[in-house]
């Protein structure tokens, strides 16, 4: 190889750095740069660094007809995941009528050992382990900082694509011959046969060393140099604009104050590249540090309540008591649904239209009530009611506790400890409460049928309307509908259809987006009920989602003080007509699941759904999610069913990413809503489920977070 000379230099430098084991100062770690692959890296090669816990980073990089968009998420302080979307030109076997080959790939990395005063950080990583295999490679890498971290050195051992240049016999092959050769389908040998998690290839075949150094020249400028062990055989073989002439890459990164990094690099001896990275942290999202909701009401002690309002007309002496309560809650963005006073006790049912945290809503309501309730009222029971009329949790507080703890240093946990949190009976609706009819209009955009070269499919107007009727005895009826009027489509003439004969359960979803007429997305009647203390039920009937109508039933067991919840769902559905109106097609099926949900604490959630999918395949879906107090949520899911990888086609199995952004961050004002995105690399037959709007677990869990002591700081916000 041409790189032999460089290797000598590199080995001398790299091993010197790695083995000297000295650090002149144990300094704070610098923010790691994200390389051209969007993961912590020098330029093209990975480092052992991890980003800050929960950092969500986005990178755009381009060089040599290769463009990449990457999302990188630090799941835990030591575990990171990456999704990469690449647009490649001039690669072998590329269809001549398509200028780009779109590739999706997933990486995962785990920091085995953190960096210490005398030891490097050590990270094990898998690149493109669940995608096409274009970038498939594995690595073990060590990184250490020197000179107060102004200099960071990295040395690593790569396999697969990361072991394709300057390679030598795999050291693991001395332990077992199985590691001697790497099975087929390496470095994109079979584009299109994608989506397998190819355990059989990992750490097999020849290996190679890579590494480099990064020097923090100024507070904003970082200089990088590396030796790459990626031969770029695939891209270099058919790309007239790119050849790998040298293993050496050099670059400079300019770091802006707002978290933006701009990297320019001279790569592989003949190509200039640019990369732009931006990161946010859901633990400290952009926006005002103390939220956008303004200060809530203060607790008004009973002896001061008479004077509390400076002559304003919401004091405890003015007007009808229910009207005062309604006005006090409305001032906090809350809607009174029902009110009852019996002696020294009041019961208040309310709807939270403003705050992401139910605890915050209840806290504001309780404090607001102290300003308007008569002095003899001592016990307050507050029950937030969900949009579907369920009331999973009530909080009972003593007014004297509120008065005592308002400025207590430990007020948060003391108020939690003194509160009684349980289910309570429901009340008849307040006749003066907000209308049960709700409606609105909004804009939507996004792709409905996932396809790599259609990142955006449709934008338009969305109309929503609902009517909620309380039926008493902890049950309610919700009539709801959603209409959509598409305004713009992208390349509607080339919507893809599967090669296999129909009917299809989901693979022809694109047909539903061809029509630009008014579409009835949902139109249904739903009955919600609580048959027991920890039991919740739902019966839905009508046009349940874009592609299916029918009946759906669900039962959820979710005790207040248990991290475990169990559910069951059964649906009898028929496929709707592609025009999105009232008609149906021939395909009908029964689909159903049993589900287990587990809340590990700290925002880590797991869900397993096992059962029969829309295409009548049997299997299970595992979903792992991390949720932050700020309302951000990020998760991954994967489904394995009886449908084989061959039957499934491209992608091999259903998988994707879930991402939620709090409405307050998007809209610039307090909001209890979140904007949810689900990204699937491909939407195919296997593992397809109904997209139901009102599954029970999430709203029930959210209401039950009132029992989470960690959230009781919000009670006083």
């Amino acid at each position, binding site marked *: 190889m041409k790189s032999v000379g460089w290797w000598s230099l590199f080995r001398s430098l790299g091993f010197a750095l790695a083995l000297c084991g000295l650090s002149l100062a144990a300094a704070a770690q610098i923010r790691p740069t994200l390389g051209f692959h969007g993961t912590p890296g020098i330029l093209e090669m990975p480092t052992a660094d991890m980003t800050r816990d929960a950092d969500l980073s986005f990178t755009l990089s381009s060089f040599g007809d290769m463009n990449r968009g990457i999302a990188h998420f630090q799941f835990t302080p030591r575990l990171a995941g990456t999704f990469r979307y690449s647009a490649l030109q001039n690669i072998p076997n590329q269809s001549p009528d398509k200028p780009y080959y779109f590739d999706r790939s997933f990486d995962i990395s785990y920091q085995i050992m953190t960096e210490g005063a005398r030891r490097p950080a050590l990270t094990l990583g898998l690149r493109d382990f669940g995608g096409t295999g274009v970038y498939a490679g594995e690595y073990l890498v060590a990184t250490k900082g020197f000179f107060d971290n102004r200099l960071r050195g990295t040395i690593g051992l790569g396999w697969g694509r990361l072991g394709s240049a300057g390679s030598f016999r795999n050291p693991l092959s001395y332990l077992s011959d199985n590691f001697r050769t790497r099975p087929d389908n390496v470095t994109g040998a079979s584009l299109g046969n994608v989506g397998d998690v190819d355990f059989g290839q990992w750490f097999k075949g020849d290996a190679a060393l890579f590494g480099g150094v990064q020097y923090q020249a100024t507070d904003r400028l970082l200089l990088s140099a590396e030796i790459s062990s990626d031969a770029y055989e695939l891209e270099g073989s058919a790309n007239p604009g790119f050849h790998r002439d040298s293993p050496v890459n050099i670059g400079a990164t300019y770091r802006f104050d707002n978290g933006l990094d701009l990297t320019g690099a001279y790569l592989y001896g003949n190509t200039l590249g640019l990369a732009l990275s931006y990161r946010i942290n859901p633990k400290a999202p952009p926006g005002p*540090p*103390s939220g956008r909701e303004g200060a809530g009401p203060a607790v008004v*002690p009973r002896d*001061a309540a008479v004077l509390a309002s400076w002559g304003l007309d919401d004091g405890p002496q003015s007007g009808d008591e229910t009207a005062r309560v309604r006005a006090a809650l409305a001032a906090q963005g809350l809607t009174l649904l029902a009110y009852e006073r019996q002696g020294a006790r009041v019961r208040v049912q309310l709807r939270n239209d*403003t705050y992401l945290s139910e605890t915050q809503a209840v806290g504001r309501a309780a404090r607001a009530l102290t300003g308007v309730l008569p002095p003899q009222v001592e016990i307050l029971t507050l029950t937030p009611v969900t949009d579907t009329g369920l009331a999973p949790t009530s909080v009972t507080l003593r007014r004297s506790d509120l008065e005592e703890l308002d*400025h207590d240093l430990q007020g948060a946990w003391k108020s939690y400890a003194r509160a009684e949190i349980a289910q309570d009976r429901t009340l008849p609706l307040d006749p003066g409460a907000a209308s049960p009819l709700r409606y609105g209009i909004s804009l939507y955009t996004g792709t409905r049928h996932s396809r790599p070269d259609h990142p955006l499919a449709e934008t338009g107007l969305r109309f929503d309307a609902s009517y909620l009727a309380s039926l008493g005895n902890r049950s309610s009826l919700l009539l709801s509908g959603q209409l959509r009027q598409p305004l713009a489509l992208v390349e509607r003439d080339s919507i893809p259809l599967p090669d296999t004969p129909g009917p299809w359960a989901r693979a022809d979803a694109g047909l539903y987006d061809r029509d*630009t007429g008014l579409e009835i997305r949902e139109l249904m009647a739903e009955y919600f009920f609580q048959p027991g203390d920890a039991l919740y039920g739902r019966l839905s009937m009508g046009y349940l989602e874009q592609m299916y109508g029918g009946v759906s039933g669900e039962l959820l067991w979710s005790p207040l003080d248990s991290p475990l919840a169990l559910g069951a769902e059964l649906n009898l559905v028929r496929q709707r007509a592609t025009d999105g109106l009232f008609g149906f097609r021939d395909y009908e099926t029964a689909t159903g699941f049993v589900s287990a949900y587990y809340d590990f604490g700290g925002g880590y959630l797991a869900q397993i759904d096992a059962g029969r999918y829309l295409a009548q395949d049997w299997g299970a879906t595992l979903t792992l999610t991390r949720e932050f107090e700020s309302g951000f949520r990020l998760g991954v899911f994967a489904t394995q069913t009886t449908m084989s990888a061959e039957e499934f086609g491209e992608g091999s199995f259903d998988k994707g990413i879930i991402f939620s952004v709090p409405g307050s961050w*998007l809209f610039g004002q307090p909001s209890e*809503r*979140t904007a949810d995105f689900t990204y699937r690399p491909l939407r195919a037959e296997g593992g397809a489920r109904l997209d139901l709007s009102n599954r029970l677990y999430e709203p029930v869990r959210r209401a039950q977070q009132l029992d989470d002591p960690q959230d009781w700081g919000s009670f006083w916000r």
Partner: protein
Amino acid sequence: MRHPAHILSRALLPLGLLLSLAGCAVPLASSNPADGTFNRAVLRQVGGGLLPPAPVDPRYLALQEAGAPVLRMQADEGAGVALRRDGPAADGVVRWRAPDGAAIDMRNGVVVASRSTADDLMFSDLAELQARLASGQPGLARRFENRMTKDRTLQLQTYVCTVTRAASPAGPVTREDCAGPDDGFINSYGPAGGSQQRVGGRMVTFSPEGSRS
């Protein structure tokens, strides 16, 4: 022939993208994203700078109309703000409300809590400082602060403060020099309720107007 909606796409798609990025074009997760609040938010997003700035907090307007007492607040940079006293002292604590809806709670002129001021001081225990202010005796006073971090968790911080007293033309000034594990600051409390204190990570000067406006 191309469908009109497809032709429209070139013009409308950038708009859709902009709206999406602005955060108002995304269907929301809630089952009923249908209320006036949401629609007003959309209008505000679409209107951007064309719309007037966010309205003054209604509670503040009501207090202003009722002639509630004023406390003037001045940060290191920017114009001063008139805080309005929100109700009588409860347990010795007076709440002062700002036009933007933020609030500062004071006991005997000392900030004991703040809301919506960035780095909110949720709870505090300043009993030792209050005792030294009342007695006029210099010495050490511990300050306990329970602050809410940006990810909505509470963080307890302890400062050890040296309280000293000095004369000034207007009267005695008490100085509170605090040192904590991560940071430090100096508050000062002058005669007639004037003070300079750290609020929301910034030094802020308070000067009472003393009368109903």
